């Protein structure tokens, strides 16, 4: 496998790009694997990678019903941050951010993690206090966090709407400088290539259509490409978790699938150098500019349960209103494309990386809005769980039984209503 480097880019430039291999092999499924991960997104591929790398497991497959990264990995707004403050979430996302910081080198693949800073606008003294609680917690747990006053904010992002007659005048911002954006597809391909190099079998167009059980254990997976025996199985298939769960003959999950839209404008020369978040008056909006120049943004869920990967107009209007309200220069900027992904919203807005009622089945699900940024860490801890059959302390409460124990890991305090955790 040709290493990715400037040296090889030049060398191949001089030789008609002949030296580049397939980035990952398109494998035929074998009869039997030690671990099969269902779902070829960032989480599934990262899990396979860390299973091979951290735990030395050799015989691993990732089965994907379509093409790698075809789910939410390729549909999100690419924001990476760790400004979570609930126990467990805090450490988990911080760990993820640390993995992100060196991910390009780790994978030898430029995932373009740009630590351009994540700026949440604040509009009232009480909002500043509420943010301070979160950002203080981040600082005390070894992360970076700042509160910017208006003066500093104006200096950094001069073309925000600082009009004092705005409906909600800006008073400051909560900032995580190490946060930023990454190139989402590159993360998928980078993990796929690196996992492939470590011997993981990546099997695309391989849909799980049945699950063979013997009492409390999975024997193997019936797939569109034949039967696969497996010693351990990990579900990592956001948006399809419930379907797989039902296939495994298990009951209900604390998950509801909703759709979340994302938006990109025509490419423009640099206009916005940070990730900016706007949330006041019931609004929820986040925007950044991709390296290609398109402004990438998103907002709330469409608010009704849906597996359709296409959105409706009210949210389009809603995000446009937010966009032009904080960046009034965007009125003439044109929306190029909007699309939608299926988010598995959980009952407290936090995820599950846990064991299941079946002895050799493990679950990674319920990522709400957090799946992309969580990818590396989710892979790390899910691999750890599968390899050792016991959860690390960081994810010990991220199991399906936490509600029974009375633990709600609720970042927004929204309660057991999945649509409110956007």
């Amino acid at each position, binding site marked *: 496998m040709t290493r990715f480097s400037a040296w090889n880019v030049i060398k191949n430039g001089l030789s008609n790009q002949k030296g580049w291999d397939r980035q990952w092999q398109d494998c035929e499924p074998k009869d039997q694997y030690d671990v099969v991960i269902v779902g070829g997104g960032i989480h599934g591929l990262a899990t396979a990678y860390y299973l091979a790398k951290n735990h030395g497991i050799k015989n691993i497959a990732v089965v994907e019903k379509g093409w790698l990264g075809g789910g939410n990995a390729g549909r999100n707004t690419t924001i990476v941050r760790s400004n979570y403050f609930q126990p467990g979430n805090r450490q988990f996302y911080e760990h993820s951010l640390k993995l992100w910081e060196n991910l390009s080198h780790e994978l030898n693949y430029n995932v373009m993690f740009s630590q351009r800073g994540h700026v949440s606008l604040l509009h009232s003294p009480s909002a500043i206090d509420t943010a301070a609680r979160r950002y203080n917690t981040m600082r005390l747990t070894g992360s970076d966090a700042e509160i910017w006053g208006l003066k500093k904010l104006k200096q950094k992002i001069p073309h925000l709407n600082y009009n004092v007659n705005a409906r909600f005048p800006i008073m400051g911002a909560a900032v995580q400088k190490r946060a930023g954006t990454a190139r989402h597809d590159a993360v998928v391909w980078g993990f796929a290539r690196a996992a492939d190099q470590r011997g993981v079998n990546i099997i695309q167009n391989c849909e799980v259509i049945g699950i063979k059980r013997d009492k409390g254990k999975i024997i193997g997976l019936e797939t569109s490409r034949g039967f696969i025996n497996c010693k351990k199985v990990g579900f990592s298939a956001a948006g399809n978790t419930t379907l797989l769960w039902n296939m495994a003959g298990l009951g209900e999950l604390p*998950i*509801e*699938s909703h759709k979340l839209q994302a938006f990109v404008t025509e490419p423009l020369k640099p206009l916005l150098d940070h990730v900016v978040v706007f949330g006041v008056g019931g609004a929820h909006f986040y925007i950044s500019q991709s390296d290609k120049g398109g402004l990438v943004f998103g907002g709330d869920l469409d608010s009704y*349960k*849906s597996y359709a990967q296409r959105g409706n107009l*009210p949210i389009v209007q809603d995000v446009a209103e937010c966009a032009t309200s904080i960046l009034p220069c965007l009125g003439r900027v044109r929306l190029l494309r909007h699309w939608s992904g299926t988010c598995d919203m959980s009952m407290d807005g936090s995820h599950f990386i846990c064991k299941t009622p079946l002895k050799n089945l493990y679950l990674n699900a319920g990522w709400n809005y957090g799946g992309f940024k969580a990818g590396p860490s989710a892979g790390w801890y899910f691999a750890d769980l599968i390899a050792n059959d016991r959860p690390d302390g960081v994810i010990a409460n991220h199991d399906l039984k936490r*509600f*029974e124990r009375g633990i709600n890991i609720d970042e927004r305090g929204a309660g057991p209503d999945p649509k409110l955790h956007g």
Partner: protein
Amino acid sequence: MIRIQCPFCGERDHSEFTYGGDGSIKYPALNAPIKDWLAAVFHRKNIRGLQLESWHHINGCRMWLLVERDTVTHKIESVRAAHIDFQKILKV
């Protein structure tokens, strides 16, 4: 835009409504065992396909409705008032 045939107001945009949730959930009695409450509050069938769900005509008549809707195509099969007495009255 999903268009919902409100039995009280006629066909309206879904943006006039708020989505409630799974309309098939039967909430247990207030003194029911904890496992019944855990199931009702935290567990979801999360149907891919036709499901019964509740919507609230919040910017209209403020009535709660039970809607049968396909969660993939968004097609609506039926709409009725959630309140049993209103269902009866509207049927007559």
